[in-house]
């Protein structure tokens, strides 16, 4: 009896805690939007963060995109060949990357590469009381620290996803055309006939924009909310990756349902 009672209590406390954190995250999002004027007036701050979140993530994004594209082409060719339609390999690679893999895998990598860095940085700033020091000098830490990082993430994410898609298609081309020997002309022409600018490409970019907002905001909130201890920061970093990945996959389902519906 006691055990059940405690279990229910823990469950309720956990749920309330989750809801509290969700609400606090939403409030931080609102505050960031309200006080983001600073990050555009002093655009240098945002550019610095674009460099750290975007440019430094380029290598991992481009290399993994190349391999994802190559694997897609290899796997796709094996199945398509059975139905005698190996020319459709270009469509398969392009649609898979443009619609799903580009935005989603980029967001997952982004959460692991840039999100953790953001959380750890802000968590340490809080642990070493840099944020409190800013407040003492009447500098809003949200306007000075949070907002530039937020906008940098929102700017960097669609660019990274687009580069991922393009690089993946190049990887698929490298495998399909020189390695397997699919005709280059039909590879591109079938792709062009079936990939739509508005329905496929722009929707993919929109997806990556939403993922950018979600990933960056989760990373920022976890850092801002982290207990100011070494353990607290490390846990917050882990939570960033877990929450961002789950949020990206769940949002992906919702967005896809809306776009296809």
């Amino acid at each position, binding site marked *: 009896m006691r055990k059940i009672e405690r279990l229910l209590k823990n469950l309720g406390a956990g749920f309330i805690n989750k809801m509290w954190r969700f609400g606090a995250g939403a409030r931080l999002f609102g505050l960031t939007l309200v006080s983001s004027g600073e990050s555009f007036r002093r655009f240098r701050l945002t550019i610095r963060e674009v460099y750290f979140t975007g440019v430094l993530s380029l290598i991992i994004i481009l290399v993994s995109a190349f391999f994802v594209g190559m694997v897609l082409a290899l796997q796709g060719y094996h199945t398509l060949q059975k139905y005698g339609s190996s020319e459709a390999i270009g469509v398969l690679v392009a649609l898979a990357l443009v619609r799903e893999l580009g935005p989603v895998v980029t967001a997952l990598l982004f959460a692991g590469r840039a999100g953790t860095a953001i959380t750890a940085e802000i968590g340490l700033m809080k642990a070493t009381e840099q944020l409190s020091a800013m407040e003492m000098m009447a500098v809003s830490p949200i306007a000075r620290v949070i907002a530039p990082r937020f906008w940098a993430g929102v700017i960097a994410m669609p660019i990274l996803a687009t580069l991922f*898609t393009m690089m993946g298609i190049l990887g698929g081309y490298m495998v399909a055309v020189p390695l397997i020997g699919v005709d280059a002309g039909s590879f591109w022409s079938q792709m062009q006939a079936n990939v739509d600018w508005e329905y496929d490409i722009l929707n993919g970019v929109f997806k990556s924009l939403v993922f950018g907002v979600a990933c960056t905001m989760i990373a920022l909130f976890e850092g801002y909310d982290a207990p100011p201890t070494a353990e607290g920061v490390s846990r917050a970093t882990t939570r960033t990756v877990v929450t961002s990945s789950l949020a990206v996959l769940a949002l992906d389902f919702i967005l896809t349902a809306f776009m296809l519906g």
Partner: protein
Amino acid sequence: MEKTTIDLWVGIFVAMGFAALLGLAMKVGNLTTTNIGETYMVTANFENIGGLKPRAPIKSAGVVVGRVEGIKLDPKTYEAVVSLNIDKRFSFPKDTFANIYTAGLLGEQYVGLEAGGDENSLKNGDKIIQTQDAVVLEKLISQFLYSKATENDDKPANTAATSTETGADALDASPLDKIGK
């Protein structure tokens, strides 16, 4: 304003992003191939459109000349009203024939236009009168089976007729026996 290396890298990064988007638009997507400029809209009524969907291509002699804009059901006649967006560069005679074809055996369905001989051409808001419905595979199969069945029905009738001519046991030869054989 001093220039830093970070600015340069971010500039390169953003430029690469735009280049990739441009590449997607030009090389991967259909922005260039189906860039239909000004269009005019005509409608066509079909009794059955099969699996035709909005944005399906409209082809004349195999060349894409437009896209299906929308499909509605006429509540009075219970016919499908398909609105067709056709490129302004191509004008079709008033008695143009609109068919629904299937690309390949299992491919997507499209509207095929066959130009007629009328001197007046279709204008915005006109209606194509001559149409031919989509071929529905189930209907085709049931027609085939029906014709097969009637063939079989004919045969017993013929043999029965001959047997009545030949002999007395014609009355015993009921149709059930024939099926049994």
